[in-house]
């Protein structure tokens, strides 16, 4: 209603052919990376941002591969969600990533949207964030003359905020293949089954040795400024035998650990309660 800006009027759209080309252009004022455009174009249409030059990285081969390397799966930033879902490697080694992405947007969105775009957009509701947090993924960031690798947990800084420095881009997501454990758990709460931004989501991985929890990983989306690991609840569970009392404690703690807001989709109270109850559901499933 504010009056649709004619946002394409003075806009340049450049297809970038290689990482070298990208590094040359990325620092230019008014330049912005576009991959699938499913987040960026929405923001441009609403007038929230108005770049002058779009650097389209969607056809850079070096960003388009899914590979296995030294016990890790490496996914290029420009790989689409549909491609991830079709990948045998991901299905076998990273089933939770698959489960989470199956419910992202709709088929059309997944055909365009990319893993890199989803992460850099840094929505607290980004569907790839929870599985990547659980898998202890590392993000490989590159800029002219240097490259660094940071844990995904440190990448998110707040809603729409990341650790990317200016002139830096996300090249690869590198994920250690986890050892066998309990069936992974994932639940995304939405008001409908497709095209639903998560109201809250919970994912979990768990390993039990000798009757006690050897390691627990829990992560939640849409219940804090970024997707987060529930580390206090993880600590509570580690080294313990899962009993009804422990489940009740974990439920309480998880609900305390998150810091949701009330927005147009749901209230903070509901989100808190749902996270606790989903932790309970997961642990009940583990006990059987």
């Amino acid at each position: 209603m504010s009056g649709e800006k004619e946002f394409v009027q003075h806009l340049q759209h450049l297809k970038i052919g290689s990482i070298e080309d990208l590094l040359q252009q990325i620092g230019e004022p008014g330049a912005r990376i576009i991959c699938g455009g499913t987040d960026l174009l929405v923001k441009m249409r609403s007038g929230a941002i108005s770049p002058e030059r779009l650097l389209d990285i969607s056809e850079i081969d070096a960003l388009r591969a899914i590979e296995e390397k030294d016990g890790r799966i490496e996914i290029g930033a420009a790989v689409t969600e549909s491609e991830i879902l079709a990948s045998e490697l991901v299905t076998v080694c990273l089933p939770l990533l698959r489960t989470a992405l199956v419910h992202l947007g709709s088929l059309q969105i997944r055909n365009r949207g990319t893993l890199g775009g989803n992460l850099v957009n840094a929505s607290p509701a980004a569907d790839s964030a929870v599985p990547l947090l659980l898998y202890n993924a590392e993000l490989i960031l590159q800029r002219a003359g240097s490259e660094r690798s940071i844990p995904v947990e440190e990448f998110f800084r707040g809603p729409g905020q990341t650790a990317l420095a200016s002139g830096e881009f996300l090249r690869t997501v590198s994920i250690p293949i986890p050892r066998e454990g309990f069936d992974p758990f994932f639940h995304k709460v939405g008001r409908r089954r497709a095209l639903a931004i998560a109201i809250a989501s919970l994912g979990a991985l768990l390993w039990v040795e000798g009757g006690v929890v050897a390691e627990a990983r829990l992560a939640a989306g849409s219940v804090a400024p970024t997707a987060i690991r529930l580390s206090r609840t993880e600590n509570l569970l580690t080294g313990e035998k899962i009993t009804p009392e422990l489940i009740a404690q974990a439920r309480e703690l998880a609900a305390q650990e998150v810091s949701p807001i009330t927005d147009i989709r749901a209230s903070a109270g509901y989100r808190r309660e749902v996270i606790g109850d989903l932790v309970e559901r997961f642990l009940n499933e583990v006990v059987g």
Partner: protein
Amino acid sequence: MNEAETKHSNTKSQDLSLNSGMIGAAVPRPDAIDKVRGEARFVDDLVFSGMLHAAVIWSEFPHAKIRNIDLTAIMDDPRVVCTLTSEEVPGDNIVHVIYDDQPALAAGIVRYIGEPIALVAAEDRASARAAATRALIDYEEIPAVFDPEEALRPDAPLVAVPAAVEKGPNLFNSMRIRKGDIEQGFAAADVVVEGEYRFGYQEHAYLETQGAIAVPEEHGAMAIYGTMQCPFYVRSAVAQVLGLPLSKVRVVQTATGGAFGGKEDVPSLVSALAALLAWKTRRPVKLVYDREEDILTTSKRHPAVIRYRSGAKRDGRLTAIEVDFIYNAGAYQTLSSAVLWRALMSAAGPYRIPHVKVDGRMAATNTVPNGAFRGFGSPQMNFAHESQMDLLSDRLQIDRLEIRLRNALQIGDETATCQRLEESVGLTETLEQAGQTVDWENRLRKIEAFNADSHSRRRGLGISTVTYGVGLGGKAPFLDKAGAYMKLEADGSITIAVGTVEMGQGLTTALTQIAAEALSLSPERIHLAPVDSSRVPDSGPTVASRGTLMSGLAIIAAAEKLQERVSSAARDLDIPKEEIPSRLPEIARVFFMRNIDPAVEGWASGEPVDWDPESGLGNVYFVYSYATHIAQVEVDLVTGEVNVEEFVAVHDSGKIVNRRLAAGQVEGGIAQGLGYALMEEIPRQGGRLLTTGLTTYRIPTICDIPLRSEVSFVEAICSKGPFGAKGLGEVPLMAAHVAVSRAVVHALGRPITTYPFSPERVKKAVTMQKNSE
């Protein structure tokens, strides 16, 4: 469907038509292929030479005096052609719907956020929209009221113009029903149950947003092309705003991408705005709303609060109901008084009740005016009356299907308005057939077993049964008419024009079938021309599930006249009766050579209806449609999410003209009902609506539609309908949303009384249930 298959099904319909039997056949719709291929031309696809684009400057405050309108900065751009404010309106600054309270452009005061204040025309849309943002409006905010109950308190700020409030401050209208003696009714009851039910908005979310093109024609006339349900409403509105006689305004309905009631009154405003700019510039002007404008500034289903008390005997028979309700009309009357009336007529549900007291009020608030939406005030009532039946069932320990059967209206019964039902009451059959289809008792046992076994998921079965008076009814009988124009062309083809519109519901197909049946011709010989107000007399609105019925009757009347002429020509030519259809080209040629008049007109006028406002009683509709829906849901007790697993829908809409299209209407109603019950919500902060697009206003997608759904029809023939047909369009939504929400309540064993049943509301009910156990 690929081309080969399409052809195949076309041939099939031809075969059907040869041995007549058009009525009921699954004739494929002629517009489907165009739409699927993207070839149908919607209003925004049309271009006229020299056409300008319009943008609207909308009110940013819910209630404010306009101290000054400064549009100078708008003209900075050479692509901007002109601006326009209320002072320049050549005719009356009024968009007439039922009352004359709504201005085309706000004059001195705005009453809701999104009210049009001024217009811009530019050479292209982007320039027009960009220019509109440069308007400087100086507002002086004045006290406002948004909640309908607060609006009716004596100290509330006054919203409406005096001419529009019939019954008191901020009270647009009140209406009532008084049947029997309510005290006696409750005294005779063994149990009394009470409920309070609350509803928010529902947005139409049609695929195609509102839009119109106004094209100046010769001799000072104006043509309007637009997406709409009611070309004759648009014609009156444009004529009044421009100060033109009706004969100088021509309205053409373009391919319409859904309407659901949302294009009943709003296109009058949209077209009037486009017409004002076209009048001023003498150039064609296109005005198309974007989604945000459409959601924020156009009508929706009325938010409502309903208080309901029902009394029944131990055996479940209803003795009395007392209903009190308030609907939120928004800032202008538009269709609200008609919506209020239908809500009143729907309050009792499809039940036999000796003592009835209903009071309905329509409150004015500083919010967007609400209007028509599939069901027209009924859906809120449907949830209320069905919730009450379930409460009674629970209290009396009588099965939910059984208690409905015991109270279901039958031929010979009296409705809540003391109307005796003479024919065509298939209600009991819908209940029985729906029950049989799901295997009701066994199904309930299975669900019980599932629930006993399941820790955090629970299933439920919901049933709802509804009735809907077909046509416009006793409040505005003068609107219930329709014309049809029919012409035998020289090659034996038939051209038909009607005044009710195709908006996706399949009217063109149904009417073609009716014409084919009436003329004993194959449907390929018949062409329905696009609706153009200059071709037929005022045929009333395409609403109230009346399109097939009224235009169908008009077509039959026309066909009878044409048949007569054709038969007499055939006699002259010694053509035997059975050969007329195949030799029609020969006959048509004779019409042409001998100057026989080949054109006829058909006319249909609604059956007599009446209503007494004092008692609220009368023979209010000439016939009723009925439906029973049963839904099975699974509720996730941890998250409050609801999955609709299965649906059974049984309808009595009289004779079904086209089974495939009718089933499509029902399936669409199930989807739309499911959205209303579970997901669709517009939070409001003061006078501001917080959902501005389809990202946050969630309608169901294909993934939410139940995997198993069975649609069937019992056909209680209506002697007054075309080939026995009644109306269908609105009924599916009315029944569907209630079956879903009641299924959730059944699953939880605890009532929820506020719409929609969002995960959060459902979860809250689960928690309360746990705490009470």
